[in-house]
């Protein structure tokens, strides 16, 4: 019996033969006030799950685009507590769309793992993806997350060995995030046939849905990826769009929608 919002959403998608469209935006980028409207806009465009970035000063697994997004968010005054508040604001009008907070470990340690997990769960957060916390280093955060009913989403990469894939497959809940490229977010090369093969292979080791991110730039990428995987995660193109509109933040929600709608359409007709 599935009990988290993420699991319910994944099962509903499966039942209707559709794939998950998962946008990533950074909370507070470029200003805190734009984030909640942007979240509602991506849902209107057909997003199934939202990955909301918790900005960190030293995001060493991210490329320049996401790094600048985090910098803008921190400069706008966004904090980890602010990210949690953003989610409770969003929940006032949307109680269905699952939300995953994605970021780095140090801000969570600074707040305290237990306090953070309790606050996040109370605000309506559904899952956590901590980029620099592989299963080998799981500590009190994992316990607190479990106690508060939060899914913990882990990453797998092209270089992940079978042995680690099994460990990761056991640790991850909600879905597995497959990083489709060697490299950082925003890298340009995406070999879609490689990804399809790899996803098919990983299914031998992993029972949860597999969603693919890094390098998905347009509707065609999203459609091809979703034909093999259970979902497409779209980040850097959205953060780039936010960057292009820093001086007109009121235009951001519609601009994000305009990027995601064709992706949604292509994914649905493809399926």
């Amino acid at each position, binding site marked *: 019996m599935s009990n988290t919002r993420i699991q319910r959403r994944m099962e509903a998608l499966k039942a209707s033969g559709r794939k998950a469209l998962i946008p990533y935006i950074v909370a507070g980028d470029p200003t805190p006030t734009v984030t909640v409207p942007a979240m509602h806009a991506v849902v209107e465009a057909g997003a199934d799950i939202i990955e909301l970035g918790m900005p*960190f*000063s*030293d*995001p*060493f*697994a991210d*490329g*320049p685009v996401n*790094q*600048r997004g985090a*910098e803008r968010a*921190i400069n706008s005054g966004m*904090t*980890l*507590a602010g990210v949690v508040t953003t989610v409770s604001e969003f929940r006032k009008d949307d109680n269905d769309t699952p939300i995953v907070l994605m970021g*780095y*470990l*140090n*801000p*969570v*340690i*600074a*707040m305290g793992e237990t306090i953070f997990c309790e606050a996040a769960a109370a605000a309506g957060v559904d899952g956590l993806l901590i*980029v*620099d*916390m*592989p299963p*080998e*280093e799981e500590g009190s955060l994992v316990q607190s997350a479990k106690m508060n009913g939060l899914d913990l989403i*882990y*990453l*797998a*990469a092209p*270089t*992940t*060995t079978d042995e*680690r894939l099994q460990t*990761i497959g056991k640790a991850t809940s909600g879905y597995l995030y497959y*990083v489709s490229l*060697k*490299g*950082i977010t925003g*890298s340009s090369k995406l070999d879609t046939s490689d990804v399809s093969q790899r996803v098919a292979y990983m299914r031998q080791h992993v029972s949860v849905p597999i969603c693919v991110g890094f390098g998905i730039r347009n509707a065609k990428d999203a459609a091809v990826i979703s034909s093999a995987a259970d979902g497409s995660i779209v980040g850097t193109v959205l953060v780039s769009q936010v960057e292009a509109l820093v001086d007109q933040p009121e235009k951001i929600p519609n601009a994000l929608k305009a990027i995601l709608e064709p992706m949604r359409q292509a994914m649905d007709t493809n399926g």
Partner: protein
Amino acid sequence: MALTEQELRTLEYEPDTGGHFGDYGGRYVSETLMAALNELDHSYQNLKNDPDFQREFDADLASFVGRPSPLYHAGRWSKVIGGAQIYFKREDLNHTGAHKVNNTIGQALLAKYSGKPRVIAETGAGQHGVASATVAARLGLECVVYMGADDIERQSPNVYRMKLLGAEVVSVESGSRTLKDALSEAMRDWVTNVDDTFYIIGTVAGPAPYPQLVRDFNAVVGREVKWQSREIFGKYPDALVACVGGGSNAIGLFYPFLRDAEVAIYGVEAAGRGLSTNEHAAPLCSGRPGVLHGAKTYLMDNSDGQIAHTHSVSAGLDYPGVGPEHAYLKDIGRANYVGATDDEALAAFHEVSQIEGIIPALETAHALAYTKTLAASMRPNQTIVCNMSGRGDKDIFTVAKMEGISLT
């Protein structure tokens, strides 16, 4: 000190298989780096005990670096201070001018044994960048060095040196434009080019196995001091002093002495404009545990967990984190960590130049500043070994500029 002598002699100083020193260290990296780190760990654990590898490493240290480096009695300075006898471990006499080359030689050999044609490095003061460019030239490897834009400005002689050696120097404009940002950028390069690239980290920070292997390559310093001190003054030193940026020259000196309870150990961090200001780079003195650049360790951050911008007159100490083994040694009380301010370091820089005829690196000058304080509190029949981690040629422009002197 909280530990009994017996406890101290039997403590575990090796990391566990996950690279943890007590609660610190580990491998807090994204999945994209895990395979590369595991592979590096595997090849290091094998090569560490491979006699051919060790022989080649030792031979390079002897013929290319010029080891062993002397243990020099700073007799005049000791007399002026009027306390303990001060000895300098002369890492400044190494080829390329600092201790950094010990580690670089070791890692470049690892790169060679693992068949990687390209090496990358991050650098703060430029010493590690120069050392990496040097060994890359010698082994015919392509070399790219990441350096913060601010550091490029304050360490320009070393930037030019790297270019002369055939390396590409990439200016890092993000964040605080110093060492921490260069390290992030080097990690990004490594994730992207992991198949053909070896990342030569310049200090004992970063994910496992780097803190261990960088320590092991620098531990030649402490091993030499062990026999040199016996030969010169018939016993181990009463105290060891070294500056701590990431902590590689310090751990290199300390590590072989960790079980020798009679030897007191002092690491000196950059207290910048004072530990009570926010403008310093002293995570062990006034930071707290967190996770940065792949390791759990003491670091400097704000209340929201964002990494702080640090300040130090010396680029090589201007880093908000520190090697996880130092975090462990602090917590168990085996080593003491103290600070020296910009002003104290500059005073020591001049004093040692004029009294001993050795111009020290600004990083080293922090260790010298504390050595002076410590020596004054000790007796003339006691001894201190201070790691002269590098020479000050690279810093003369910085010092001149601060003192309003134009050299061009």
